[in-house]
């Protein structure tokens, strides 16, 4: 999966404006939060007691 998508390097970030950097941070934070929620839902299903 890593190869299919972005792979941010520090050099890439150097070239971003503060606005672009902020956009990237917010988008990443949103996705991380979403993905963590999904993992929790999966674990709830996989927990046989549920």
């Amino acid at each position: 999966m890593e190869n299919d998508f972005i792979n941010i390097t520090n050099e890439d970030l150097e070239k971003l404006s503060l606005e672009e950097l902020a956009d990237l941070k917010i988008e990443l934070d949103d996705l991380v939060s979403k993905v963590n929620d999904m993992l929790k839902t999966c674990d709830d299903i996989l927990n046989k007691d549920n």
Partner: protein
Amino acid sequence: MATIEELNKDYSKENNILKKLTSPGGLKDKITQFQADLDLAVKDFKEKKKKKEYALSRNDRATADMLEKDLETIRKNVLDLRDKIQKASDFLANQQKIVDEKFEELSKDPEIKQKLDSILYKKYDRKKKAELNKKQQLETIKQIVDAHPNIQKWLKGIEGYEKSIRKCDKIIDKYKATPPSTPEEQKDLSDAIDEKNHSTKSLADRRSDLVDYFAKNHPEIDKNILENIHSYGNIDRQIAGCEKSINNYDKAMDNLSVAKDTNVVNQTSPSSLAPVPAQKPSWFHPIQRLKYSINEWRARRTQNIEPNPIEPNASAKSTFLEDVKLSKDEYNSEIVQKYLNEQYQENLHKVARQKGNDSNERGE
């Protein structure tokens, strides 16, 4: 020497990280797809589990065992899905770490930190307003759906056709990896392609019914929101998602150094966004309600202020009471009494000033 086109190409290449993340087929899209798959699995799981419990309550062991097998299949699918989500999570956590480190590095300079916080605050504020607006529209959609059985049918149809398309896609993908070798497998593939075509057309029809109905009867509802509703239950899940995002943005804003800077707050109240009616939260504290009433009363009073000074008398109190409709306890509260005293003193000063002006005019 590089041409402008080359420079532009380089610039775009270096600045398209976010685009790559959010473009169609990008990671964000994949995650949305995972979410949809997971939602379906959760729904199936809950339904089958209820049926199994019902079967057990009737001592129908055979049905219960069959449903348990179905539940195991769903668990297996969820486990596969979880692997994919975990990979996305690890990858994103790594990317997030790199970006956060950059933020830390930049934030060492107080001036840049201030600027960054200010930018983030504005962006969070804008996103929060957009989520509030989306939540409000979803709630309106839900009310409308609840009142219209036909729309419920369309949503049921959308859910069913999407499910059918997913099922067919799995079969088609399977034969892409290993082409069908027996007549049964060829028929299996051919049936899946036919069913997918039929479901895709029917899905488009139901979606169009839904969008057209709202366009005609509720044009204020955003078409994009309607196009992203996958079932009736999906509306509630999206509302919960909006609430979660709003909370996340609130927390993120609270952690910024500019959180209490009223200038930033004023700058970040974009009037261009779709209007969201001001909502008084349920925890609206009595004292805050009182302050709110007093401010409103003050605003109205300023608009309707008489050009001539008013003699301080008891009528000021009764006007106030009539306007804000205070209870006895509220009237006797410290804040109201303080306010009334201030008004009284202010009026006394006004009268004194006016009298002074009048005598000066007469003296001239």
